[in-house]
Every structure is written in structure tokens, then in C-alpha cells.
């Protein structure tokens, strides 16, 4: 029954587009919304989306930040901010998205992070007549463009544009002055660190700390303990919600690194630091405060 309804919706939409084209009008047609997503697809809506499924915590934060939180009808298990988001039904962990669980929320728009499995999921959802938009969101600079498009699709352009403006100006700031350095260690065996081209690298720079692996162009990379020791960062930054030193802190091979030996760990909450989002400025302030508070 539901599928039949969706088919007729799809048919109606196709008919509408065809008539629009037949009359010689270009998309966007009058009263409609059109954006181009990061997969290069043109996404058109006749009216602002009313039932949105957000498949990335960052999108959920943006939606609530621009006042479109009441339109969110589905989220992932990772979407835990703001607290109101927890009241929205979850459609699973989104890796990869369960197309059936998403469709069961009867959305008129699904926001997906652009990745291989998500592109496939978006195609499947489109076949069910559900509009999808694929957005890149890995770095600070991508927050503004993402917020603008989400604002346009939800009819909250004004709030979204002002958020995007703040994000853009944050992204264009030069690195803050500072003498301290840090390394972001994502995993210990093999050691994986954060390089340039990542959100965290930019956050550190804006908080006045130099990422000692800023010369690595990829967002993350495997390195050896020896390299970390030679670059001698003042701090080891970890995404961790507890303040317990990591298991490797007491191992002899890691104690060659001065910051590990001196237990200079910065424990950064995953909710605030682990994802690009509207709270970037708050994350930068928090990191700066933590760097200043530790001699």
C-alpha cells in the first residue's frame, strides 16, 4: 500500500516536471527549490522539506541550529546533539543506511554524507520516490556551503545563511598565534595520526596549537612512534569521553614520546570535537582553554 502511494507520488512528480518542461520553464520552476549537491546532482523540491531524515550527526546539529529541528523525523544512533534530537526516532547507525528503515519514516528529503555506500543508498531511495541530497562534510570550510543548502531545502535560508556566514568567517581566519604543539593520535597500533586537510587540524590551528603532522596532506595517516617522538609534540590529543590515560601510555615503546612520558594528554569529547558542526567556535574556545590551563 505504502509503496503504491510512493509510486503515485513519483508519477505525479514526474508528470509535474514534464509539464514544467513542456511549458518551456527551466528548473527551478516557480515556487520550487533547487540546489546542486556534492555528487553533482540537481535536487529539486516543490516546497520546503517537511519530513527529513538526517543520516549524519553534523546534519542533525545544523538542522536544529537553524530552527528546522521539528522537521527531523529520523536520525542515526550517533546523532546525540542537541538533546532534543534524541527524541527523534533512530533509523540505525547509518553505516550503511538501512533503506527500508529510512523509507519507513516516510521522509520527503534524506540528507546523506557523500560516501560510496551512501551514494548507492541514495539511488535506492530515489527509486522509491524519496528525494536525497549527498553532501561533503569533512572540513571546516565545508560547513558553510552545507548549512546554506540545508537551509534552502528546509525553507530556513535566513537562519542558515547567518550560520554559514559565521562558519565561513571562522574558516577563513588565519591560524591563531601560539607556541604549543600537539599530535592527534587516533589509534595506537599501528599509530594513526591526524594530518592537514582535516577538521581537527584546522581547529588546533585556530586554537593556537600547531599540529606536528600538518605536513601530511591526508586527513589521517599511519606513522611510526619514532616519527612522533622526533617531532616531539607538547601534547597528545585524543578523542575520548573519559579522562583515563590510554592503555599504551605505560608501554615502554610509547614512553619514548615526551608528551606520553609526561602524561600530557588532552581528552577531547567526541560529541564536540569528533564531527564538524555549528559548535566549531565553541570547540576552538574549549581547546584554547585546555591548552592555556595546562602549563
Amino acid at each position, binding site marked *: 500500500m505504502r509503496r503504491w502511494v510512493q509510486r503515485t507520488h513519483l508519477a505525479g512528480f514526474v508528470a509535474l516536471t514534464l509539464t514544467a518542461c513542456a511549458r518551456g520553464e527551466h528548473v527551478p520552476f516557480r515556487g520550487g527549490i533547487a540546489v546542486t549537491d556534492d555528487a553533482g546532482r540537481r535536487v529539486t523540491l516543490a516546497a520546503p522539506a517537511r519530513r527529513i531524515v538526517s543520516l549524519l550527526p553534523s546534519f542533525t546539529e545544523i538542522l536544529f541550529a537553524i530552527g528546522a529541528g521539528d522537521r527531523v523525523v529520523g536520525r542515526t544512533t550517533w546523532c546525540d546533539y542537541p538533546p532534543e534530537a534524541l527524541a527523534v526516532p533512530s533509523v540505525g547507525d547509518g553505516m550503511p543506511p538501512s533503506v527500508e528503515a529510512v523509507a519507513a519514516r516516510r521522509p520527503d528529503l534524506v540528507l546523506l554524507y557523500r560516501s560510496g555506500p551512501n551514494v548507492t543508498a541514495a539511488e535506492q531511495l530515489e527509486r522509491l520516490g524519496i528525494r536525497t541530497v549527498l553532501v561533503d562534510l569533512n572540513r571546516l570550510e565545508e560547513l558553510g556551503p552545507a548549512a546554506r543548502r540545508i537551509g534552502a531545502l528546509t525553507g530556513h535560508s535566513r537562519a542558515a545563511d547567518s550560520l554559514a556566514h559565521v562558519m565561513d568567517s571562522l574558516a577563513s581566519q588565519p591560524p591563531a598565534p601560539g607556541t604549543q604543539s600537539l599530535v592527534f593520535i587516533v589509534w595506537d597500533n599501528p599509530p594513526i595520526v591526524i594530518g592537514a586537510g582535516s577538521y581537527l587540524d584546522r581547529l588546533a590551528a585556530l586554537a593556537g596549537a600547531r599540529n606536528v603532522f600538518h605536513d601530511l596532506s591526508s586527513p589521517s595517516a*599511519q*606513522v*611510526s612512534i619514532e*616519527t612522533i617522538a622526533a617531532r616531539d609534540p607538547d601534547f597528545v590529543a585524543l578523542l575520548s569521553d573519559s579522562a583515563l590515560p590510554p*592503555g*599504551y601510555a605505560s*608501554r615502554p615503546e610509547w614512553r*619514548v614520546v615526551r608528551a606520553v612520558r609526561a602524561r600530557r594528554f588532552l581528552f577531547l569529547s567526541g560529541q564536540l570535537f569528533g564531527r564538524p558542526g555549528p559548535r566549531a567556535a565553541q570547540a576552538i574556545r574549549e581547546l584554547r582553554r585546555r591548552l592555556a590551563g595546562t602549563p
Partner: protein
Amino acid sequence: MKYVLLGAAAVTTLAAALLLGPANVPLGDLLGSPILWQLRLPRAVLAFLVGGALGVSGVGLQALVRNPLADPFLLGLSGGAGLGAVVAIALHLPGPWALPLAAFVGAVGAMALVYRLGLIGGAELDARILLLGGVAVGAFAAAITTALVSLAEATELRNAFLWLWGGFSGASWTTVLVILVYAPLPLVVLAAAARPLDLLALGEEPAQYLGADVRRLKQLVYLSASLLTAAAVAVAGVIGFVGLIVPHVCRLLWGRLHHTLFPTAFLTGGILLAAADTLARTVVAPRELPVGIVTALLGVPLFAFLLRRWTVS
């Protein structure tokens, strides 16, 4: 002469492993540097010992199943080790030793299962069933591993796979000690089996007539080779190609007698893996390559070259 060259190559490789690294330590400061004593030295020793263990294990297993394609990891051990590691992470087992220990237990569990399967036809290990059973147990363990990965938290488990793909990032004197505890007994057992293994190459029945206790021999060789591999997995993850290629290289260069094959395979495996790890640490510095990629990139052309020489002559 060949032996002198092999010894010289081993010394040169170890020296290079100690002198070269992503950190620029001046030669004068090297002896006083923790980078040498806590990082490079244990790592070079560990890579050498693991390479040696895999080389010897490969010789033993190829002789046992009388199949040149046998690899220590073909017999289900890598699948079992992977399952163990993933279970350790999924259950959040604490402590730095949880993961290697679980991988070791997983590998030994897979070994026991394959061994039991190998005895299906009666009291004697059937080489064909060992191979088939190894592949089947490996696939089964991999299926459970994949199921766990797709059901549990993704990032941590992805990192478990990074560990499993092998490498010496976790090398320390403790890991060197672990392999020094596990490796000697199976090495001695295999060395003692050198003569009967030569006989086994003639076929099981002829070996029996010539006085080898074939049934017991096969059991001992299988268990020793598997234990060596499991110990290698526990400290370094799954490193492919060494156990497959080293026995062939040694047979081509030193002939088929096991009393020379075992020591040369130990040294050749050690040299190959220590050299591969030195390259993994230095060629793309400050980044690092997974060592398994380097062993394949080094080992396969070398193997192809030797094969060609062998078929021409």
C-alpha cells in the same frame, strides 16, 4: 660461500634497521638515544624473529602437506587470529595484552579444529584434509568476524583490521620476550624432524618403510609449525608471503635437505622481514607502509626471478 653471504646479509640488514629511521638521530648520539634502544632495536629483532619463525613454519608445512602452495596462513590460522582479535575488541577486553593474546588463542583454536578435521579419516593426519579443512575453518572464522564487525561499533573494529594486516608498530622488549618464549620449543622440534621430513618427501609409504614414524611426525610438524605461526600473529599480526616464498627461495638456493633448509629459512625469513620493515618505516617517511605490502612487493619479483632461473637451468 653461500652461508657466509647469508650471514653477512643478516648482519647488514640488522645494522641498516638500526641506523635508518624516520627520525634523524646523529650517529654520535645514537648509542645514547632511547629511539635506538626502545624503538629500533626491539623492532628490528622482533621483525627478524617473526620472519624466521614464518620461514621455518612454511618449510615445515610445505613438507608436511607436500604442496608447494602451502602457506602458514592457509591453514585457517589467520582467520582464527582475526576472530580472536575482533572478539577482544568487541568485548572491550582491557589491557594492552588482550588483543595479541586473543589473536593467539583464536589461531590455536583454529589450529585445533583443523587438526581434528585432519584426523577424520582415522588416526593419521590426512594432508589433503588438512589443506581443505584449513581453508574451510578460515572461511568460517572470517564469516563470524565479518558478522561481528558489521554488527558492532565500526571505527574500533576497522582499527582491529589494521592491526591484523600486520606490522611491527607495537614492537617492544616485551613482544620480543613473547616470541622468545613461544618460538624455541617448536623450532627445536622441527629441527629434530629434519631427517624424517627428508624421507617424507619420498612419499608416506616409502618414509614408513625407511623407518620414519610418519603418523607422529605429521602431528608434531603440524603442531609446531602452527604454534610458530600463532606466536608470530600474536606479536605482529598476519604478515603474508614470507612463509610461502622463503621456503621456495631456500630450496632453490640450498637444495631440499631439511637440516640446511631450516636454518637458512630462518635467516632468509628474518632478513626479508627486517629489510621489509626498514623500508616500510623509511621510504614514505613521515608516513609508514603496512609491512605486508612491502614483503609482497619485494618477495614476488624475487620469487619470479628465481623461478625463471630454476626453470631455465
